[in-house]
């Protein structure tokens, strides 16, 4: 353990619990002497040559391996416990769950961005009118 203490800057109980969970996870990603870095980077072209060594680091040291192609991050090798930590966050906090769902749902995210742009352009309509038009047209058959 790193022995770090996280100060509570007005976080809610849930946020505090979640941040401590992440901190517990992260603290397991270092050797006690801090000699093992949390994250390392490798080029995609070198991945196959070093895959056994990298998987061992992920498994034994809880390291993350960022894989880059042409200076762009394309993937990350992470320990299973990292995904379990995300699972825990999704289960314990509906706002976090919805945020993760939205991050992953490109279609809905694109729609929301278009809607925001429309509002910024002053083109949003009264919601009452939208509902009334649907009723006038008979619902789903519009």
């Amino acid at each position, binding site marked *: 353990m790193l022995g770090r203490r996280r100060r509570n800057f007005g976080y809610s109980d849930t946020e505090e619990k979640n941040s401590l969970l992440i901190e517990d996870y992260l603290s397991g990603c270092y050797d006690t002497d801090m000699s093992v870095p949390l994250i390392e980077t490798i080029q995609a072209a070198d991945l196959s040559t070093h895959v056994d060594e990298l998987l061992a680091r992920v498994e034994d040291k809880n390291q993350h391996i960022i894989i880059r192609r042409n200076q762009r991050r394309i993937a990350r090798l992470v320990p299973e416990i990292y*995904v379990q930590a*995300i*699972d825990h966050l*999704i*289960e*314990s906090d*509906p*706002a*976090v*769950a*919805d*945020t*993760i*769902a*939205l*991050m*992953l*749902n*490109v279609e*809905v995210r694109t*729609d*929301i961005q*278009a*809607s*925001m742009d*429309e*509002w910024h352009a002053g*083109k*949003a*309509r*009264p*919601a*009452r009118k*939208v*509902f009334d038009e*649907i009723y006038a047209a*008979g*619902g*789903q058959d*519009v």
Partner: protein
Amino acid sequence: MKYTLLAGKTFDKSLHKLPLDVIKHIDDLVFQLEDNPKEGEQLKGEFRHLWSLHTKLNNVQYRIIYSVNVVKREVILHYAGSRENFYKEVKRLRLKVA
């Protein structure tokens, strides 16, 4: 003073994919936001400007995503859909869902 409820084309489009009884249920629900715009769950991080309202009808859960402009006292509805559709990528990755 009440907030004004606005909707963009994408909200309109998303409503058209839902059955009429669900649309009426959402109609009843969202107008409560005129009095209490922070009824939903505020999303996190880069999405903290968005709110998610949860509801359920006939054992199907739904999500309504909206934002709030406090200065103009406007609530802008962006999306309404089933939770299943909203969470489809989470499920595809087999992450747990509450």
